[in-house]
């Protein structure tokens, strides 16, 4: 089943980058759960290790078969993703007002995370089939818009606006990549503005407008999101050039950071390792993204190329939004930092993505 030639073409570089990011992630998570809180939450670290184990297995499974099978079974995979989202809608576990979780014994999964990949696969199939170089027109965009909208709305309902927005961004990125015909693009942007303006001025109530403004600019809410952001900025800034040292971050240890092991984990890293540590992480992500884009380039099959671009977009957007958020450049949304943030489903999704990238990479010369 696994041809010896695959080993020759195996992408050791991408695997090494993955291990580098995973190591940075585990180290930072260790500090976030051990140095903070009166009672260290060591269990979270152990759980994350187990999830990395599960993720590695999932990654290996993802390279065993030819990725082109995913093109053939794209609808099945997509249907499975929607099925899981429907399942969670009716039987999901509700935590903190939103039902996102499916629980199997000790494991709980967020289908919305996996839905990201299923949308990427189905869109890659569609665009791979119809990409022409001239760009898509409104007519050609109807199907992909519906493909995105179905899981998007199901996830909005949970509600998990962060993940839903991310799916929208990924779909938009993939669509822009395969090119939208110029007039169509102008039309979409124009009608977007034309709809948003009257919405803003006539349909939204004052408090709704305030809420959106606060979302865009957390400074307007000094007691809520704004407070978190200022503490996060203090954490990052106080790291200075070389940081306060491993396990020495005071903002981290005294629990000034909200969600320090999930969404705000970058602040922990930047506080303890300073500018040097943070820049290393940013470069690691940058190299990873370029590597993945190179895989997209060397793939000679439109499906594979677009699939690789979609996956890259997913990881890149999450990294940019998360880091931008904790540095006070972006609204506060619950988007995890790939490889680094605590969270099983997100990690599993990231590792499956790496697996798909490895798959595409090692079959780049295999044309059958």
């Amino acid at each position, binding site marked *: 089943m696994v041809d010896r030639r695959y080993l020759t073409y195996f992408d050791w570089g991408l695997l090494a980058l993955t291990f580098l990011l995973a190591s940075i992630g585990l180290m930072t998570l260790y500090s976030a759960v051990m140095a903070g809180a*009166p009672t260290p939450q060591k269990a979270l670290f152990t759980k994350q290790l187990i999830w990395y184990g599960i993720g590695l297995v999932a990654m290996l499974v993802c390279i065993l078969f030819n990725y082109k099978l995913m093109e053939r079974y794209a609808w099945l995979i997509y249907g499975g993703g929607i099925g899981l989202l429907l399942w969670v809608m009716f039987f999901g576990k509700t935590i903190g007002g939103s039902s996102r979780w499916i629980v199997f014994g000790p494991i709980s999964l967020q289908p919305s995370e996996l839905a990201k990949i299923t949308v990427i696969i189905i869109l890659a199939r569609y665009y791979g089939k119809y*990409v*022409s*170089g001239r760009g898509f027109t409104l007519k050609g965009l109807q199907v992909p818009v519906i493909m995105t909208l179905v899981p998007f709305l199901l996830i909005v309902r949970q509600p998990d606006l962060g993940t839903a927005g991310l799916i929208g961004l990924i779909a938009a990125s993939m669509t822009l*990549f*395969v*090119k939208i015909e110029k007039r169509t693009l102008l039309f979409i942007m124009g009608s977007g503005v034309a709809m948003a303006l009257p919405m803003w001025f006539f349909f939204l109530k004052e408090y709704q407008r305030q809420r959106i403004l606060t979302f865009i600019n957390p400074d307007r809410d*000094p*007691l809520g999101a*704004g*407070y978190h952001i*200022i*503490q996060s*900025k*203090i*954490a*990052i*800034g*106080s*790291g*200075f*050039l070389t940081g306060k040292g491993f396990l020495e971050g*005071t*903002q981290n240890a*005294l*629990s*000034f950071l909200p969600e320090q092991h999930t969404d705000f984990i970058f602040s922990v890293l*930047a*506080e303890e390792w*300073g*500018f040097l540590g*943070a*820049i290393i992480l*940013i470069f690691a*992500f*940058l190299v990873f*993204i*370029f590597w993945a*884009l190179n895989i*997209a*380039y060397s793939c*000679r*099959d*439109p499906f594979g*190329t677009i699939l690789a*671009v979609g996956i*890259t977009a997913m990881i*890149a957007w999450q990294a*940019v939004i998360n*880091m*931008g958020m904790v*540095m*006070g*450049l972006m609204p506060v949304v619950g988007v995890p930092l790939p490889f680094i943030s605590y969270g099983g489903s997100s990690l599993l999704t990231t590792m499956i993505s790496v697996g798909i990238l490895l798959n595409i990479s090692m079959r780049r*010369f295999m*044309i059958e």
Partner: protein
Amino acid sequence: MSKYLKTVDSEWFRQRLTLVMVCVVAAAVILILRLIFLQIIKGQEYRRMSLNNSIRLQSIDAPRGLIFDRNGNLLVDNRPSFDLYISMKDARPVEDTIGRLATHASLDMTELTGRVDGVRGAAYHRPQLLKRDIGRNALAVVAAHRYDLPGIDIQIQRLRNYIHSGLAAHLLGYIGEINTKELQREAYADCRAGDLIGKFGVERTLEDYLRGERGGRQVEVNANGQVVRVLRTVPARSGHNVFLTIDSRLQQRAEELMKDKAGAAIALDPTSGEILALASAPAFDQNDFISGLSRDKWNALVNNPHRPLENKAIQGEYPPASTYKIITAMAGLQEGVITPDETIFCPGHYRFGKRNYRCWRRGGHGKVDLIKAIAESCDVYFYQVGQRLGIDRLAWYAKAAGLGTATGIELGHEGKGIVPNATWKKKRTGIAWQPGETLSVAIGQGFNLVTPLQMAVFTAAVANGGVRFRPTLVKRVVSWDGNEILSNTPRVAGRLPVSPETLTLVQKGMWEVVQGDRGTARIARLKDTQISGKTGTAQVVSREKIEESEDGASVHKYKDHAWFVAYAPSDAPRLAIAVIVEHGEHGSSAAAPVARELIKTYLEAPADPPVMAVGAGGPRNG
């Protein structure tokens, strides 16, 4: 390798990918520039801020809205309570600080240490409550020794203050700490554990108006935990002030009159349904609930056989007794089963089936027409009217009079009462309706149950020509800066389904009750004001039972409940009243004088000028 056929050539994809890479680099550059700004340019400043851990959040509690009566007399306000807080991180060494605090302010050392041990595990950097309501003297001492007491902070909290202790306790209600169940409810979404919310009375039902909106500030503190700079402030918004419809003078009078009794007295404006007084006796003192009720006091309240915690005006359900004859009379006239001139002979009893139904006057009333039947409350007359009507028609008129449904006043736990009919009885007891039971119902005994408020609202409807208003306690709601949030407009709940002629006849009968020579409530007469009314004497147990019991009717708990409903002045009513005195025996002797005094107070005695101008604002947030 290149034999693969492409739909678009790889050169095209290369161009697109180059575009993507430019975007990625641009994003990375922005992130790196931001990082440089935060960590290198402003790094020193943030390092300093992080070393002090100096940015804190303080919350500003919103003052609860004030409650006034209809004339602007202040009934409920807030008084400051000075609470001691400790920030464990700043107070180190904690034992020494606590020791100094105890000596300076003469506070109990063991109590303070106990409290400190209790909060040790909680959020380290957050101020923890050490002692509530330390009083002004201790406050002055602590403030003077501030620099000797690192990490000790004083916060001012407002406590609810019921100005006239015990006045309108059931109506105003009280507040208390929110419980876990309430915290999960949508209505309390912006509350936190430890918040005080309305638990009873209008404090509870008007919670949304009275509760303000919490504010807060971001502050920078120094190494001692004391605030050196306020960075941002979101002001709290005070709760709205509520003007009730009650007249505190009349309310006070009603409570005086009901003192040492158990029961309720209600007075309302028959032209609008606005409640002027609503007293339930015995009462309690709400201020006891604010500083925490001792176990003994609580037990005394709960175990008192006269149920002081119950608002009898709306929760108490009693047989309406002879006051119900107003409804029987209206139904009989309207349905044409009697005419005003028809007379019925009352020999003191009425034989129906196998049973002998007695009139309250053993000797009988002789020849009785409608007016005389109402004035002298002849049971035999109404037995026959009830028999002619049948239970279904009687029940229909009772429902139309507003019985059997809650009136919808702004108070919780309102009782609905019971309007019995054949289906109801079958469902409730499984036994078929006995024709004789209709006779009992016709004179307000049997399964009939009403609340005093229902009777007051019904009496008001008789007085004003047949309009049944939804009773209300809220006159106006005004925000602290004077904007009117709500202004009461009378709401009609229904109309009495009787012709003006019928109503005039019933009113005439009720006038005779007080003003007539042989009326049952001649005791209620006033010199200058004409009053109309109806007495009632509700049996607690059947007469036979009393006679069977060894000590007879002298036992208090077997004594009848006394009712009186009234309105005045008879020609242009401005006040409608319902009074019930539990075990007061006769409506005429126990309940009617209460109504008379209320009418006298409201209509004859000059009103005091209001203590506080209407519309005056409460304290601002701070």
